[in-house]
């Protein structure tokens, strides 16, 4: 059976639509939960629904889905209250409060479930199906319910987006502005709860938790803006819902709920590895590039300082061995860095007749090294006499020192540097011999 064939089936269409809606609202609401550090709240709420469902059955004796949803919602509300009360009134942290509520509620639910099972009139079949979810059994009525709930949830999110943003990032400031933060928090929890309860019958307890977490975490990898994150999370959720459903129609016995979660997990893994800003691969590449730059700058500085100590060798060049002694880096690393610098036209290898060959600066390299050394020594000076330079309001997080100041400010500092005898001794203006060598090299290479 190919994909197109199965799409013709109206039943599949309903399931597909329902799962996409579920992913959409799960992703949108999950983003807020994720940013508030409450990713596992969905898991707790989903487990806490069991006693509610059982109690409704015990009291009414009916197995209507609508009543179950109400029971689950009430139980979830009680669970939310418990979690908030425990974290507010004791020193117990939120994760422990979640775990306590989850397990105790579920335990009570199991007690009730077995109690129903053992009671003479009882028949618990169907109750646990409700909790473990069967997306394939969704019918048009369920999906209509989902559509209505999703539209309500999404429009509330759109209307109160500004307030929810405030709640997510700076509730204290929001309270200062006069927004009812406690009320908004409860509203957000209630919306989360609604999404969970609606999702229960489609994908079940455990997997509903995933629908709240995975799309939100995935979206976080691609953006730094809340608005785009919420949209992306909704998109990822809906896509996972679609892909999972389509896959499960292709293979016999493949359950829909877990396939949706696995699709969402695949999106997450892909983003974890390949997202351009936070992905592991690009972070590794950036790290390697940074390490290379720093190595090259270190070598340039070491070469400069070596020439400073023995200016007589300036035109003869410095041997790798002496540079190794100066910089303390292994010879192989040093050679690699020098060759890279040579390719960039910063240094050159000079074989002057009869003498030992050595590395010398090119004009560009000398200028660059001079800048680096000056910058480094100015920072040293700054940290030595920090009090003295407070009026300059320098940002210590920036690498560049000279660029932060105007020449009038810089002049006295350069004088101070000179009084310590730290002025870089090699002039940045290229030596005529170097200029000649440079020209010769360019002539040869052209």
């Amino acid at each position, binding site marked *: 059976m190919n994909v197109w064939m199965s799409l013709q089936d109206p039943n599949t269409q309903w399931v597909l639509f329902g799962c996409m809606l579920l992913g959409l609202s799960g992703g949108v609401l999950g983003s807020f939960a*994720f940013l508030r*550090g*409450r*990713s*596992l709240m969905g*898991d707790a709420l989903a487990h806490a629904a069991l006693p509610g469902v059982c109690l409704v059955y015990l009291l009414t004796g009916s197995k209507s889905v609508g009543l179950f949803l109400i029971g689950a919602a009430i139980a979830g509300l009680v669970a939310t209250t418990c979690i908030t009360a*425990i974290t507010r*009134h*004791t*020193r*117990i*942290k939120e*994760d*422990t409060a*979640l*775990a*306590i509520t*989850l*397990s*105790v509620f*579920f*335990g*009570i*639910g*199991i*007690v*009730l*479930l*077995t*109690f129903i099972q*053992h009671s003479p009139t009882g028949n618990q079949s169907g109750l*646990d199906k409700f909790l473990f979810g069967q997306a394939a059994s969704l019918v048009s009525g369920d999906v209509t319910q989902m559509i209505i709930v999703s539209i309500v949830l999404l429009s509330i999110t759109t209307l109160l987006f500004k307030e929810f943003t405030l709640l997510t990032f700076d509730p204290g400031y929001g309270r200062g502005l006069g927004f009812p933060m406690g009320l908004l928090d409860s509203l957000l929890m209630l919306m989360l709860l609604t999404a969970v309860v609606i999702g229960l019958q489609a994908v079940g307890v*455990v*997997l509903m*938790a*995933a629908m*709240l*977490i*995975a799309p*939100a*975490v995935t979206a976080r990898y691609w953006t730094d803006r809340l608005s785009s994150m919420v949209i992306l999370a909704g998109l990822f959720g809906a896509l996972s819902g679609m892909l999972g459903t389509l896959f499960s129609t292709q*293979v016999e*016995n*493949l*359950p829909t*709920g*877990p*396939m949706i*979660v*696995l699709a969402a*997990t695949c999106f*997450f893994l892909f983003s*974890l590895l390949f997202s351009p800003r*936070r992905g*592991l691969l690009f972070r590794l590449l950036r790290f390697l590039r940074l390490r290379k730059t720093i190595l090259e700058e270190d070598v340039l500085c070491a070469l400069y300082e070596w020439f400073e100590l023995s200016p007589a060798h300036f035109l003869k060049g410095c041997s790798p061995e002496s540079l190794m002694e100066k910089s303390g880096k292994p010879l192989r690393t040093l050679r690699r860095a020098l060759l890279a610098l040579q390719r960039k036209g910063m240094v050159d290898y000079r074989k002057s007749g009869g003498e030992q060959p050595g590395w010398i600066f090119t004009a560009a390299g000398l200028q660059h090294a001079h800048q680096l050394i000056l910058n480094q020594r100015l920072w040293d000076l700054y940290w030595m006499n920090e009090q003295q330079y407070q009026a300059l309001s320098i940002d210590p997080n920036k690498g560049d020192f000279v660029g932060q100041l105007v020449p009038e400010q810089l002049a006295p500092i350069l004088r101070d540097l000179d009084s310590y005898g730290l002025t870089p001794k090699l002039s940045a203006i290229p030596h005529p011999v170097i200029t000649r060598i440079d020209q010769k090299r360019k002539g040869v290479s052209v």
Partner: protein
Amino acid sequence: MNTLWIILTGALVAASCGFLGCFLILRRMAMLGDAISHAVLPGIVLAFLVSGSRDTLPMLIGAMVAGLLTVFLIQSLHQSGVKTDAAIGVTFTALFSIGVVLVSLYTQQVDLDLDCVLYGEIAYVPWDTWQWGTMDMGPRAVWLIGGVFLLSLLTVGLFYKEIKLCSFDPAMAAAVGIPVLFFHYLLMGLVSLATVASFESVGAILVVAMLVVPAATAYLLTDRLPVMLFLSMGAGILSAGGGYLLATWLDSSIAGAMTAVAGLLFLLSFVFSPRYGLVAKALARRRFRYE
């Protein structure tokens, strides 16, 4: 006699989980028990598919491997910049889904009942006995969980100082040269072992509850770690006994009732704890107001 065995099993589970749970709470990883108990499913199914039998040992090994994998995945996700709670959530739901998919795909070969694996029934413990030679050594679960309990007691006893330091101040521990990551995995390995050994006989829900609830109860009663460890074991054992009574009275699931009693004990300490309880705090506030 059967009653005794059931209560003993429950008490052993409660003691070993409660004991390890103290460290989970202190490290803010309380949801890990829940995560492990779900994530072992693919391990169990694979072990069953490979060995083709329902023996305890292959399943235990499969579950153990899956449990450690969960811990490892959570830790590596956390280190690559994912928040802990999100890392836990993503990992266990994904592994659980794989497990459910495996069960559904091989449903012909796998004679595994999900309810049976994840929601084991403590009431059957006394009949699953261990024959050693011709001697009846008593229920297998008691030996298994008792062994795990002794092992974790021994390990934590040996490395008490190090584990304590790692729990309260990992940065300091790393600074004085303690291999923090090793102790993290050691402790998490013990947690997975306890989870895996317990849930087959008593059900996942009891394990998750016993990992956090008695430890949280103890956390409200004391400020000292050794006292907390003993109180947590005591609270666990008390809930095992009380739960059995409740279950016989209601004619319901024993594991569920034990969980409910543990919740009740937590509620009691939440309200009446001499230092951190609601009543004590309200009294302190009143006294403060009069002064």
